[in-house]
């Protein structure tokens, strides 16, 4: 049985450029193999649907896409699951947009063109951070005894 801590982390890649999605998925696959589940989409609406339907642990999204900002995807992901780590990939960014991203809880960002090693380093760090949150959360739940639950109601 898969416990919350043994579950493979789920990664979602969002970029309006199909070639980028293919490449980033390949980078993840060859470093993490079957230790993580990664999927991608070029459609921001589809991205939001996947975020709502599944528990995404790590979201990697382009910041600047036609018709939608990566910031909107970040908000959707954080609303669904506050523990979702969010990495932005950007072609160029203004000071303001990076500050906005930080304020909304972005984990980190990477400037395109993407270099495989730098990308995978950020993914590994984000997954470690996410794992620490899950461990902390699971320990918190373990401490919630029936008595303490009863105190809440």
């Amino acid at each position: 049985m898969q416990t919350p801590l043994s579950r493979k982390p789920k990664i979602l890649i969002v970029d309006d450029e199909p070639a980028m999605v293919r490449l980033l998925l390949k980078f993840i696959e060859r470093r993490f193999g079957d230790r993580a589940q990664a999927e991608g989409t070029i459609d921001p609406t589809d991205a939001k649907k996947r975020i709502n339907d599944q528990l995404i642990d790590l979201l990697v999204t382009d910041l600047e896409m036609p018709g939608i900002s990566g910031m909107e995807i970040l908000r959707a992901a954080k609303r669904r699951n506050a523990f979702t780590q969010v990495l932005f990939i950007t072609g160029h960014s203004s000071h303001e947009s990076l500050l906005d991203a930080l304020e909304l809880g972005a984990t980190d960002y990477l400037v395109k063109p993407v270099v495989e090693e730098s990308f995978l380093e950020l993914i590994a760090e984000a997954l470690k951070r996410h794992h620490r949150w899950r461990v902390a959360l699971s320990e918190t739940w373990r401490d919630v005894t029936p008595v303490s639950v009863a105190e809440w109601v």
Partner: protein
Amino acid sequence: MSNVAQENRPVYSDLGGDPDLGELVEMFVDEMEDRIQSLRGAFDAGDLDKLRTLAHQLKGAAGSYGFGTITDAAFAVESSVRRQLSTPQIEHELESLLSLCRRARAGVPS
């Protein structure tokens, strides 16, 4: 090397020799003709917003696929539109980009 020789020289990806990535690079190169048509079409239609978006997308993707020179040329197109340069100046940058795109090759130099 003369300009003419440089303009005919194939452009190879830095990742072309990577056995895991060769197929993806090949796909990227195969799609180049569609990108060329879209970029040229946007310019001919006077749709500079679209041209800027397409150049921006190519700028990010090409370098990630190991085609750094294409990224630089796509940046020049994007930047020329952003700075509202004259139509001939934008076209000049676009032609340089398209020339590189036409010469993009998968694999490694023989």
